Each structure stands twice: as structure tokens, then as C-alpha cells.
């Protein structure tokens, strides 16, 4: 397990690098958080300067960085200018909401993609192939933003789905069944949109790697021993095809926080995306760095997870140890 330690160290260095560079980048972008106040007729320029110096914005970059690093060590991850609170607590709630959405959607997408891709790869029927190719092409071609907008339009036109929010106001007063119904109702639209956005890429990959495995001789051999088709597909072919899919899975874990930005914004999901965008525009620097680091952590975790899974799934790697 020295290997894990090495990977973690690696990740730590990456985080450090990302934080340094992010700091440098924020410096490049014009303006700072308190600039907005300059347009407020009630606030004098002196007050703005006072605030800036209070938050250390008048200090040189490296000093600000070290201060920030100190607050990371205290577990606060810096201070949000806009929200007057520590970034850690601010981000956590949104990150949870985003993870709920993307986690559900990614899970769902994988659940659909694996059997669908496998089935399409195994099918010899022309129309299945045509339908599959056409369908994934179409989904792949619809930009996320358009997809989200279409769903919004659907919700508005039909009134079947609530727009925005994760639960009704009366949620706490519902009984268990009512709660479930309410959640499903609220999650339906964003989760579907998100699922549809991630699905085609996954299906394509599953299809590609399954097609490759299906051509391999050991399947012919297994077929020669009378293993029935479904078992052949899922018990024999899938674990072998899993290898590239696991890397993909690692990648989709890595992008759990960032993949849903547009959908969150359009469908008003209280996730990290809108906050990040707002913070970038408002130059709420620590929030941005916090969010970036959070997704970097996820990136690292995703890669690590992929390797662990690969280890678990592929005896060729596992057994050698």
C-alpha cells in the first residue's frame, strides 16, 4: 500500500499546484470583490479601501496565499467576502446538493448505459444498430444547454414538473410516501436532463469496448460450451470490457462537481455550479479556489477510485501483488 501513499502525496502536490496557480490567475483577472461597492452611492471610496485592507486585499500575492493556506490548515478554506463566512461550510451544502444530482444522474446513466451498450453491441439486428447509432448521435449532438432549455420549456409548458428547488416548502409536513413523491417530483427533471447529457458518451464507450470484447476468441470458446447469450454478455464479456470503462467511471466521478454547471444554472438547482459562477463574477476568490480544489480532490479521488476498481476487477493486475 505504499503505492496509495505515493498517490496521495501526488494528489497533495497537485492540490498545492492548483491552489498556487489559481491564486495567480485570480490576480490576473481585473477587479476585486469590493469593486462592486464603488457603484453604490451610499458607500464612500474610503470605506471600500478600509474593507479591502481588512480582508488583506491590499497585501502582496504571496502573503495572501500564505494567509489562505493558514486558514486551510484551520479547516476553513478561506473566507468568503460575499457570505461573511468560512468557505468550507459555505461550499459543503452546495457540494452536497450537486453531488446528489450528479451522483444520481451518473448512477442512473451507468445503470442504463451498461445494459444498453452491451445489448446494442451484441445485437445483430440492423434496426437495433441503426436506432442505437442514430439515438446516441442525436443525444450527443444536442448541447447540454439546449437540452436543459428544452426541459425547462417542457416543465413550463406542461406544468407537470416543478422548476427549481429540491423539495416542496411543505416537505417536512409530508408523510413518508408524500416525501418520496415530492422528491421524485423535484428530482425528475434535472436528473433526467443530467442523465441524458451524460448517457450518450457512456453508452458509446460501453458499446465500443463491448464490441471489442465480443470479437475476442474466449467468447467464441465459451459459446462453444453452450453458455447462453445473456450470461455470455454479462457474466463473461462485461467484466473483461470493464477495464476501459473503469477509467471512464473514474473520470465521471472526477467530474461530479463540474459536469452539471449549465443544468444547475438553467434549472435552478441549488448546487455548487451557480455559486461558483457567481463567485467568479463577484471575484469572491476564496470561494472559487475552494470550489476548484474541491473538484480537484474529486478528480484525484476519481482516478484513485478507478485504480482501486481496476485492481479489484482485473485479476491480471491484482494477482501479481
Amino acid at each position, binding site marked *: 500500500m505504499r503505492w496509495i501513499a505515493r498517490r496521495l502525496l501526488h494528489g497533495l502536490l497537485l492540490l498545492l499546484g492548483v491552489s498556487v496557480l489559481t491564486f495567480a490567475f485570480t490576480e490576473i483577472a481585473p477587479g476585486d470583490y469590493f469593486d462592486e461597492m464603488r457603484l453604490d452611492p451610499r458607500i464612500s471610496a474610503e470605506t471600500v479601501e478600509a474593507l479591502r485592507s481588512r480582508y488583506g486585499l491590499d497585501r502582496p500575492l504571496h502573503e495572501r496565499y500564505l494567509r489562505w493556506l493558514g486558514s486551510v490548515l484551520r479547516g476553513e478554506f478561506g473566507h468568503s467576502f460575499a457570505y461573511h463566512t468560512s468557505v468550507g461550510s459555505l461550499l459543503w451544502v452546495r457540494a452536497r446538493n450537486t453531488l446528489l444530482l450528479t451522483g444520481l444522474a451518473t448512477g442512473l446513466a451507468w445503470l442504463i448505459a451498461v445494459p444498453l451498450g452491451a445489448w446494442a453491441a451484441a445485437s*445483430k439486428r440492423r434496426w437495433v444498430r441503426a436506432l442505437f447509432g442514430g439515438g446516441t448521435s442525436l443525444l450527443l449532438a444536442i448541447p447540454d444547454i439546449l437540452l436543459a432549455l428544452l426541459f425547462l420549456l417542457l416543465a413550463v409548458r406542461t406544468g407537470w414538473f416543478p422548476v427549481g428547488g429540491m423539495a416542496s416548502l411543505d416537505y417536512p409536513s409530508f408523510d413518508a410516501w408524500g416525501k418520496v413523491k415530492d422528491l421524485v417530483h423535484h428530482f425528475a427533471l434535472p436528473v433526467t436532463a443530467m442523465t441524458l447529457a451524460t448517457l450518450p458518451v457512456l453508452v458509446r464507450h460501453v458499446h465500443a469496448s463491448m464490441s471489442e470484447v465480443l470479437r*475476442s*476468441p*474466449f467468447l*467464441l*470458446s*465459451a*459459446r*462453444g*460450451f*453452450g*453458455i*447462453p*447469450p445473456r*450470461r455470455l454478455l454479462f*457474466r*463473461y464479456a462485461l*467484466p*473483461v470490457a*470493464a477495464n476501459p470503462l473503469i477509467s471512464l467511471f473514474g473520470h465521471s466521478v472526477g467530474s461530479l462537481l463540474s459536469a452539471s454547471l449549465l443544468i444547475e444554472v438553467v434549472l435552478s438547482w441549488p448546487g455548487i455550479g451557480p455559486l461558483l459562477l457567481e463567485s467568479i463574477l463577484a471575484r469572491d476568490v476564496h470561494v472559487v479556489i475552494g470550489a476548484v480544489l474541491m473538484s480537484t480532490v474529486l478528480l484525484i479521488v476519481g482516478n484513485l477510485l478507478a485504480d482501486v476498481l481496476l485492481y479489484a*476487477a*482485473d*485479476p*491480471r493486475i491484482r*494477482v501479481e501483488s
Partner: protein
Amino acid sequence: MSSHAACGAREGEPEALLQVRDLAVHYVGAGGEEAAVLEEASFDLAVGETLGVLGESGGGKSTLALAVLGLLPPNGRVTAGRVSFHGRDLLRLSRRDLDQVRGDEASMIFQEPGVSLNPCMRAGDQVADVARVHRRWPAKRCREEARAMLELVGFDDSDGVFGAYPHQLSGGQKQRVVIAQALVCRPALLIADEPTASLDATTQAEIVALLRDLRQRLGLAMLFVSHDVALLHSLVDRMIVMYAGQIVESGSRDQVVLKPSHPYTRELLRCVPGGAEKGVGPGRPRLPTILGSPPDPARWPPGCRFEPRCPDRLESCGARRPEPRPAGDAGTVRCLLYDD
């Protein structure tokens, strides 16, 4: 054409285990054109008998083996013929019914043991799985059965092998696991397509010895494909020789190897480097070869397919298609030389 002229079909014997009649296979190439890679293949295989298939590379040996168990690749198609096994026509069975036959009553093993095993399953599980699928025994029983089979194919340490993944096994061991897989349900027929071609000499010898032994013990009938004449001669009861998609000769092993009738068989046997021709230094005698190359499956010549390369060809060979006819004791040959 007629089934009476079937190569190797011996009259008057008890009902054969496997009866192949006039089997023909076409492959659709990438460009869309069809190639008839197997034609009019007919032979019988009795219970417990071993039949060797010898022939030119590309002659259709593998195709024949695959077609019998319905394992042709997607672009291959049986266009004619009948494969009756235990009295059932395998070509007319549904995929479901065929799956019940395969692995249970008849099994197939391939050339490359390295790629015939699922890299992500334990060897023992792969053997047990075949039993599970066909016998629907409880898992424990399947495992026991698999373990017993592994012992039978010569693993002393069957527990160790049971839990091993294919990449932890040597080529010979892998091939033995495949054989165990093939035999775990005690089939009556084993089709082996060059099962030892990619193994080194020692391993090859082990596997052949094993097959010989199992044949005895399980009363197994075998269809054994190879281009190693020496190997076939030492293993099989009868042989068929294939050239350019046709069975050109069949007969008992000694008859085919020692007294070949068909010119192709004769030429082929001449190519085998034997101890006799050895020599040292640059003055070494040259090996005999067959001139020219086999015809293109998409454009067979109208007459005898070996005619362009045949040392003994007659004038009529280029135009007339030879039909199989009896030769030797219970053999056949497809050559106009023997036409009368």
C-alpha cells in the same frame, strides 16, 4: 453431390455419432462478395472414434469444425447440408437448443489456449460454470465436479489451479483447463481445432498424451484438426485431407499417410522435413515443395482445384470436376486419376 458418395461414410456400420452431409459454407467478404470456403463436406464419426483433419492452410478445416457446432462468425453462413448428431440436425436447431448441445454433448476447443479462457474468471469457475449451465446442479456440486475434472486432466494441485486466473497459468496448463471445460459434462464428441499448434514441443506432447488418455477413459469421439502430419498419424484412427474447401481424400490413418491416393496428399507429405534428408553445411539438399499457390476462394477454378499445381494432372482435370469415389479400405478420394 449425393449423400451416397459421402467421403468416409462407411456403409453397414452401426449408426454414426456425427454424420455430416454435403456441408457448404459461404463467407461474405468485406467488399460484399461471397466466397464458398467449404463445399460438399461429408463424413461420419462413430462413437469413440478419432478423426483427423489435415490440410492446406486456408483449406477450410477450421470452417468445417466451426460449422458443425454452429459457431461460424457473423459473416459466415451454412448454405447447404446436414449435420446430424445423435440423430438431430444441429443446423436446424434454435440457438437455445444448440446451446444445450454445445458443451454438454459436444464441445469444441481452439488453437490458442491463451485467448480461449476468460481473463477475468478463475480457471475453476470457468469449468464449473459450464457444468452449472448445463446440469443446473447446486454451486457446490458444480465446483466439486470441476475439481474432479481438473484432476482428470492431470492437475495434481487442483485446488491451486481452481483459484488461479488464466494469466497465472502456462500455455499447457491453460489448454488443459480448456479441455476440462470441454469435458466437464462428459460429452460424446470433442472437436479440437489445432489445440496444440501454439504450444512448444514438450507441452504439445503432454496435451496429446492427455487427449489420448481421455479418449480411452471417457469413450470420447474426437474431430482433431491439425496440419502436423506426424502428430495426426500418432493420434487418430482415420483422417480426412482438405484442400481448397473440399475433402480430397479420406481413409484410415495409415492409408492416408503411408499410401496416399490424392496427388495433393502425396505432395504435402513430401514437404515434411524428415530425418532422412538431414545434412550439414551449404550443400544441404533442398526440401521438396508444391509449386504455385492455392486458388482464391472467391474464384474457384471450374475443374479440379488442385489441377494448377498437380504434378500428375490429366488434360481433363482443368475442365471436369472430380467427385469423391471409394479408394483403399473404406476410404475415398476426389481425383480424376481414379475415375474410370
